[in-house]
């Protein structure tokens, strides 16, 4: 039926029946009423009626009817209960769809047209929370029936208003209280009948607030029962339209989480998803497409995504972790948009606002990203086969003249048996003075599984309070799916917006500990009341806040955090804006180290710990994260005072790894013993706090682009530490004595080490007495290999041996059959050696600047110089103009 035509020209909405309105919107009419009821149950009437009387709205409503309900001694017969509610108002209300109310903003209609009599008036004050099945038999009774196929929800609360003789009945949750033992002809109770589960909960919450949770749990059980085995989309839609939000986000009941079961939700999720894809597949004509467009609820993705966010992350993860095809199927099947209902997300730019529309695809990506970041970022299974991949997005200003514009492209070959996504990251070097693009380089190119965790940096320009513009950098780990999605959107702003929602979700999930408890992994559309309590952990506690206000430093701390959190009542704070948070963290650490009160220190440690959940700490596991106090730091180093002064934060995780953060960035982590060694070695070169600061500043300034082995810079390493760092980035380190071929090679070529990029994984072969420069030199070859990618790095080298332990790649086969021209080989060698030489010189200069002595000996430096000079000589001799070689 097409209602739209009949609406044309109609200006008096009262003339339209509520039934029609409801139908048009795909909704149902809520019918709530108060009726006389006969019961044998007893309730503390005085308490009940005091409560009722305290509600202005309710009083007005009751007394409008000119009946004194308060005086329970009055003869009941004199009360005409039929007058409640007043006859002239139809006591029905069009109930907005649950889904719409929570997630979706449909076409805007004037809500006033849908105002209801009874519960609208109760809305402000009387929220009665009656959940199905919850019965406290000693006080009152309620009864719930959910008939999905009959499209019927019936919740009743029976509230006696006079003394009864009652018989105790044994009732357990989910059983219906039905015993009626009555002798009088007049009604003993009022019965509130509600056709809507949320109204029912509202009534219970008001009248019996202490029973709210039990009522919720019971209602969830009823819905679980009703939802099992539903197969038709219409039934499922009705089910989710009627379902109260807490059944999805979860209720904490006696320390245990209760929500609809993950199994059932997953089943429903797939049904919605497949229904949508089926529809898309079935459309083979314009006529059908037009018919679909006209159908108001064609798109079931909004249901699917809503349900998905309610399933515990771990459950979804188990379903999708080994099934990239399913992940991409879900991604590509989701359609339409939903509304973001998080409260937080504060940013000066690209903010994710409450009520903002989000593509369902995007929400899925965000959901997966948040869960992967919080739980599985460091799992071996999710490390890309091509290790150390680093992607960059946005505009980074490197100097007054140079800006780097990073862009991302991604595609997916449908039908690819491996279900991999291809990502290509390019950087345009833009000269601000000449307004020209000087170079365009591909900095990353690879094929990834959707859940491979990749390193991402996003640059944004931020206007500070002072008016100056600063480039801020968000540094994080995201699954390849995230980058694939962002690549379709082509804008760094989108990435930032998504990352902020991700940060919100991680904070929520971390503070709720939902993943362990099994409550909805990521309650995307935060049911504020439900998560409010847990979220408050993340606030600066009131008492701490008061104390902090008393000092200048404390005030600064509060200002910085307030900048990050939007403090809305008791429930609205969420984190975002990592760069700002880094600054706030820095100041908090300072206050922590200067605080003299143990309790205050504990609160600050808690604040820091919670904040760190949304910080990207690279490979460092956040599991069981603990902030070390001053005493803890002193047990690690004798130079604790220096680190405290410079506000270096020491944390420890469940694996007992100590992480060191400087200005919000983790620059080192290792076991306690290794950390102790690292600091001790550092102090052999450092004499004072100033030098330490210089060192820390330098380490934080390391190259923002590309893959790198920064961990080997500005540090002295034991051989085992070298090996660990190289392995972390996906290469292998082996002693030359392990291979006969290498024994011969090392003997006649007298090298200290040798980088073999042909091997998979790439291998650095070493002597036991390999020197620091030799190790550094080969590691820089490996870094070059990581940055340029295997194929590019090897291009120009002549392959003469077929590896017998693996199949040849296509480009290798080509190289085997052709002779590489000498000029190409010379250029390839020059580029490689030039990269290494530049890095050696850079490292040497940094050491001279910070530590006052070089890392490498003058002899070492001389040999390096002669080598690069000879490479240039050889090029010149071959007629190559090295000035024309552009190193990308």
């Amino acid at each position, binding site marked *: 039926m097409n209602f739209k035509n009949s609406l044309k020209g109609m200006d008096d909405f009262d003339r339209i029946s509520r039934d029609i309105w409801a139908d048009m919107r795909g909704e149902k009419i809520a019918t709530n009423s108060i009726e006389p009821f006969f019961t044998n149950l007893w309730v503390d009437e005085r308490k009940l009626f005091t409560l009722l009387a305290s509600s202005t709205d309710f009083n007005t409503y009751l007394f409008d009817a000119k009946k004194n309900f308060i005086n329970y001694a009055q003869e009941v017969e004199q009360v005409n209960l039929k007058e409640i509610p007043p006859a002239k108002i139809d006591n029905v209300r069009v109930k907005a769809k649950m889904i719409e109310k929570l997630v979706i903003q449909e076409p805007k209609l004037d809500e006033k047209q849908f105002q209801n009599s009874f519960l609208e008036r109760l809305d402000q004050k009387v929220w009665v929370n009656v959940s199905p099945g919850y019965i406290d038999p000693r006080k009152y009774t309620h009864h719930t029936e959910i008939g999905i196929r009959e499209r019927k929800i019936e919740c009743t609360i029976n509230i006696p208003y006079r003394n009864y003789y009652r018989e105790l009945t044994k009732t357990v949750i989910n059983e219906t209280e039905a015993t009626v033992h009555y002798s009088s002809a007049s009604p003993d109770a009022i019965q509130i009948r509600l056709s809507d589960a949320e109204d029912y909960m509202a009534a219970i919450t008001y009248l019996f607030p202490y029973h709210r949770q039990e009522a919720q749990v019971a209602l969830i059980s009823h819905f679980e029962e009703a939802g099992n085995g539903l197969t038709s989309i219409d039934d499922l839609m009705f089910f989710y339209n009627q379902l109260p939000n807490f059944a999805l986000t979860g209720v904490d009941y006696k320390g245990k989480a209760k929500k609809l079961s993950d199994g059932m939700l997953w089943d429903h999720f797939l049904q919605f998803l497949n229904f949508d894809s089926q529809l898309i597949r079935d459309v083979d004509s314009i006529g059908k497409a037009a018919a679909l467009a006209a159908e108001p609820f064609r798109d079931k993705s909004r249901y699917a995504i809503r349900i998905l966010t309610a399933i515990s992350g771990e459950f979804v993860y188990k379903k999708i972790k080994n099934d990239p095809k399913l992940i991409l199927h879900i991604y590509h099947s989701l359609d339409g948009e939903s509304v973001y209902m998080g409260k937080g997300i504060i940013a000066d730019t690209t903010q994710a606002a409450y009520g903002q529309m989000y593509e369902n695809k995007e929400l899925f990506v965000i959901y997966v990203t948040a869960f992967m970041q919080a739980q599985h970022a460091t799992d071996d299974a999710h490390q890309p086969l091509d290790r150390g991949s680093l992607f960059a997005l946005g505009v980074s200003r490197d100097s007054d003249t140079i800006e780097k514009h990073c862009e991302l492209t991604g595609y997916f070959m449908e039908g690819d048996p491996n279900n991999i996504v291809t990502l290509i990251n390019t950087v345009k070097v833009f000269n601000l003075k000449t307004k020209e693009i000087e170079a365009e380089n591909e900095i990353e190119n690879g094929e990834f599984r959707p859940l491979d965790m990749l390193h991402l940096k996003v640059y944004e320009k931020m206007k500070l309070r002072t008016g100056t513009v600063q480039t801020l950098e968000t540094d994080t780990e995201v699954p390849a799916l995230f980058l694939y999605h962002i690549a379709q959107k082509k804008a760094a702003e989108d990435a930032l917006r998504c990352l902020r929602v991700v940060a919100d979700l991680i904070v929520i999930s971390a503070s709720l500990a939902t993943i362990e408890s099994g409550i909805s992994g990521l309650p995307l559309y935060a049911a504020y009341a439900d998560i409010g309590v847990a979220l408050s952990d993340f606030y600066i506690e009131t008492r701490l806040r008061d104390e902090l206000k008393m000092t200048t430093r404390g005030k600064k701390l509060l200002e910085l955090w307030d900048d990050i959190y939007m403090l809305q009542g008791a429930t609205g704070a969420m984190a975002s804006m990592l760069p700002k948070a880094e600054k706030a963290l820095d100041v908090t650490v300072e206050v922590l180290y200067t605080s003299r009160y143990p309790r205050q220190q504990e609160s600050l440690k808690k604040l820091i710990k919670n904040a760190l959940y949304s910080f990207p700490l690279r490979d460092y596991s956040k599991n069981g994260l603990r902030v070390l106090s001053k005493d803890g730091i002193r047990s690690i180093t004798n130079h604790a005072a220096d680190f405290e002064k410079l506000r270096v934060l020491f944390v420890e995780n469940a694996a007992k790894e100590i992480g060191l953060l400087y200005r919000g960035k983790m620059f080192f982590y290792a076991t306690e013993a290794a950390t102790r060694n690292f600091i001790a070695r550092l102090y052999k070169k450092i004499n004072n706090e100033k030098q330490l600061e210089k060192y820390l500043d330098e380490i934080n300034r390391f190259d923002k682009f590309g893959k790198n082995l920064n961990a080997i810079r500005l540090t002295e390493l034991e051989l085992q530490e070298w090996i660990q760092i190289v392995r972390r980035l996906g290469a292998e380190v082996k002693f030359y004595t392990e291979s006969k071929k290498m024994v011969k090679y090392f003997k*006649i*070529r*007298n090298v200290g080490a040798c980088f073999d990029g042909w091997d998979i994984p790439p291998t650095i072969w070493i002597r036991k007495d390999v*020197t620091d420069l030799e190790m550094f030199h080969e590691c820089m070859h490996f870094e070059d290999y990581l940055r340029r990618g295997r194929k590019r790095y090897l291009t120009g080298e002549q392959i*003469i041996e077929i590896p017998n332990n693996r199949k040849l790649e296509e480009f290798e086969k080509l190289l085997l059959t052709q002779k590489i021209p000498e000029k190409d080989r010379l250029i390839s060698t020059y580029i490689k050696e030039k990269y290494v030489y530049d890095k050696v010189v850079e490292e040497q200069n940094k050491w001279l600047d910070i530590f006052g002595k070089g890392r490498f000996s003058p002899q070492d430096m001389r040999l390096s110089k002669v080598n690069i000079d000879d490479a240039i000589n*050889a090029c010149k001799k071959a007629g190559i103009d090295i000035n024309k070689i552009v190193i990308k």
Partner: protein
Amino acid sequence: MINKEKKAFEKIKELMKVDPTISVINSFYKEKDILRDDSIKDVIVVSLLDDIYGKAFYVYMDAETLDLLYVQGPHRYIEIADFFEL
């Protein structure tokens, strides 16, 4: 000098014939070069490329006599006897 460079090149090429893993690329003249023992000499350098790992090696020769002096590797100097022994 061009003749000398050519001769040096041929000499090394002859020596390397037996080693299929290395290519002799070219040779160039360096005037008053500081050698590994800090002595200063005119030298001819023959540039070699390793066909296995793409490393470069440079054979240093006395520009006058074409005597082999030493081989300059990526990390260390190599004695002539070691380098050409197969």
